[in-house]
């Protein structure tokens, strides 16, 4: 009797009004000088099921309890991951343990490195985490290596992954993916966006005898903006290419600080127009610095010579397209607003002041190496 009841209980809900998704882990690996660097997000609930994390049994996992089991966790996880580089297995070593939130709870973030003595030839990966404990667990892989980026799902029925070899040309997919990375980088590169916007805020105005006036026509505005954007574009393309090809190297802390300084100066110039006449030159000069900032993104992906030019082209194109999109969205609105009296005090001055505040914080963070705001 009781057994039937149990089964009925089961059946009542069998048509799946599911809540959370089943168990997933998120594994990212990227090329690094000695092999790979990786980041593995593993749900605390799953780790607790496998290893027991709740030291004091009070139903809550604290940072202290997680930290205490750091070696246990990294040992457990890395034993269930195998990366093969070229001819031999890579040696995995845990580097750090952090925490992150995903849609279904808190995850341990395991940062690790893979030392691959077998070289940079074909690589592959074998994943077995939690398959013995949860038949529904999946590993969601994202990888970036040798000019190719992609994703894969590792399941109990599909535990190995090998990136597509000779059959598929990495060229086509990598161009597209680098294009995306370029657009993505400009979208999330607030510093590049703010620099551009600082330069463009006054583009809809003209400076006449120490006052601002609305530009006479849209054509004037567009022409002005075009000059600025072109100067910026040419400059950053040059340095991006030089840096990515390895001909130009500057310490990244310098580059990042200079970029922050450029934003600061551009915005300050809107409040106290010192070199308004030279803003195209200004855009060019600091565009050179921004190009180095973009290059650091590409450097994260070790590229074979063949794919490099294409990757560069795609990335740069992506950055341009992203920029164009921002400018195209911004200019018409700014032009219309600039006809109003409040544009100068409200948008130009207040907007520039806000940008200055952010730029100062960035400059402080980047030059001093501290973290105050999220990037």
């Amino acid at each position, binding site marked *: 009797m009781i057994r*039937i*009841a*149990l*089964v*009925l*209980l*089961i*059946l*009542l*809900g*069998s*048509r*799946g*009004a*599911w*809540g*959370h*998704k*089943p*168990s*997933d882990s998120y594994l990212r690996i990227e090329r690094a000088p000695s092999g790979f660097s990786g980041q593995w997000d593993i749900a605390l609930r799953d780790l607790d*099921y496998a290893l027991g994390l709740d030291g004091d*049994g*009070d139903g*809550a*996992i*604290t*940072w202290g309890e*997680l*930290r205490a089991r750091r070696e246990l966790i990294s040992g457990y996880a890395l034993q269930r991951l195998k990366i093969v580089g070229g001819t031999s297995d890579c040696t995995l070593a845990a580097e750090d343990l*952090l*925490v992150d*939130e995903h*849609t279904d709870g*808190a995850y341990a*973030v395991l940062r690790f490195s893979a030392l691959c003595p077998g070289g940079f030839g074909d690589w592959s990966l074998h994943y077995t985490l939690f398959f013995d404990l*949860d*038949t*529904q*667990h*999946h590993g*969601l892989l994202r990888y970036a290596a040798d000019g190719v980026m992609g994703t894969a*799902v590792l*399941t109990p029925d599909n535990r190995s992954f090998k990136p597509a070899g000779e059959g598929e040309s990495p060229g086509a997919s990598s161009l597209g993916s680098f294009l995306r990375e370029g657009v993505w980088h400009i979208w999330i590169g*607030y510093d590049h966006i703010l620099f551009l916007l600082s330069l463009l805020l006054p583009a809809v105005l003209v400076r006449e005898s120490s006052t601002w006036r609305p530009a006479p026509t849209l054509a004037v505005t567009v022409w002005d903006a075009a000059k600025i954007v072109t100067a910026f574009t040419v400059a950053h393309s040059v340095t991006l290419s030089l840096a990515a090809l390895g001909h130009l190297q500057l310490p990244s802390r310098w580059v990042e600080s200079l970029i922050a300084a450029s934003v600061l100066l551009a915005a*300050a110039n809107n*409040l*106290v127009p010192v070199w308004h006449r030279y803003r195209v030159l200004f855009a060019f000069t600091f565009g050179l610095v921004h190009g180095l900032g973009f290059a650091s993104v590409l450097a994260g992906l070790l590229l074979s010579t063949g794919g490099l030019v294409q990757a560069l082209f795609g990335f740069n194109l992506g950055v341009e397209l992203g920029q164009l999109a921002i400018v195209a969205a911004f200019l018409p609105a700014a032009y219309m607003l600039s006809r109003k009296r409040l544009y100068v005090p409200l948008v130009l001055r*207040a*907007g*520039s*002041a*806000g*940008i200055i*505040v952010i730029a*100062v*914080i960035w400059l402080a963070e980047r030059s001093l190496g501290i973290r*105050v*705001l*999220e990037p």
Partner: protein
Amino acid sequence: MIRDARSGVSEPAAATPPAIALGLAAALLAGGSPAEPFRPIDDRQVLEHVSTASGGAGELRRQWVEHPEDRELALRLVRRYIEMGRETADPRFFGWGEAMLAPWLEEGRASPDAWVLSATIRQNRHDFSGALSALARAIEAAPRSAQAWLTKAVIHEVQGEYPAALQSCLRLAQLAPGMVGATCLASTLSVTGQAEYALAQLQQALRSPDADTNTRAWALTVQADIAQRLGRRETAESSFLAALTLRPHDPYLLAAYADLLLDQKRHTAVTVLLRDQTRIDGLLLRLTLAEQALRSPAAAEHIEVLKARFAASRLRGDALHLGDESRFHLHLLGEPDAALALALRNWEIQREPRDARILLEAALAQDRPEPAVQPVLDFLARSRLQDVRLQKLTARLAKGPA
């Protein structure tokens, strides 16, 4: 919030006071960005809650870990996991249960009970063919296992294999107490042209005082379903409410009742019923449908959440909520093409009246007649399914889509 507070502002450059204020606002906005991995600063910071006793599963598991060879204990634990999975709609429990059973099933030393539990778990994730093979093994070893026949009957009915479902129900009726067999039979008869008869039989069976809570709740739910299909609103409503008093937190029951309320356009009642039920996707969907109808501001946010949930599901390669996803695309996003594609894929896996319904609704929303819908119409005609809502949809389709 788990994140530790971060703030910091330094001196602004010379600017007019309102500008400073706006600047500060902008800086603070820039400080709140999307999640990235972080290192907590306090050892006492709570990161995650894991239920301790969790209804006895924690204790059972501890015991099992100490006695891994104790099959009876293991089966009890698996049953407990299935129960908890059903109550919380959290798939991890099913995954854990299945992983525990896997080694025995492979070895071939599994008891019929283990096969039935395995079938139940597979059925839950819509692996119907896997479930049926597991049931075949169970029945071979234990032909008088009522549970096996019951599970078999339900799967056949979900797949629209009505003769097989009926056969299984008849076997079940010989082996199980009255209300169980009666409900199984009523359910199958109601979708094969004998809905009135089935309803009468079920009402008769429900008058009996015997039967435990879960059996009664199931019978009431089936009664509500049949009544809805026959257009008997009051019977449907009172059946659902009676079932809900027995199992107030059952996600499946809540979803079914919410559907009734949505059909009657009682949207406020839905928001009350499903208030705060945002964790379970099916319930969140129904809540959002009501919120949208009420033009509530919460709808937009919930739509984004649902988008992310379905996307996460697709990312991991699952295809389990196709019917719900189809409803989402049709009624919340206004994308009839995507909805139709999803509904057609869903129909390949399961063929309950609700699956037919979303398919017909999606087909009606197309600009031109959709040939893919014809097999479904044939199926409905052949089985002589009685459902007032489906009849309306079929009639409109016959006239030609709008």
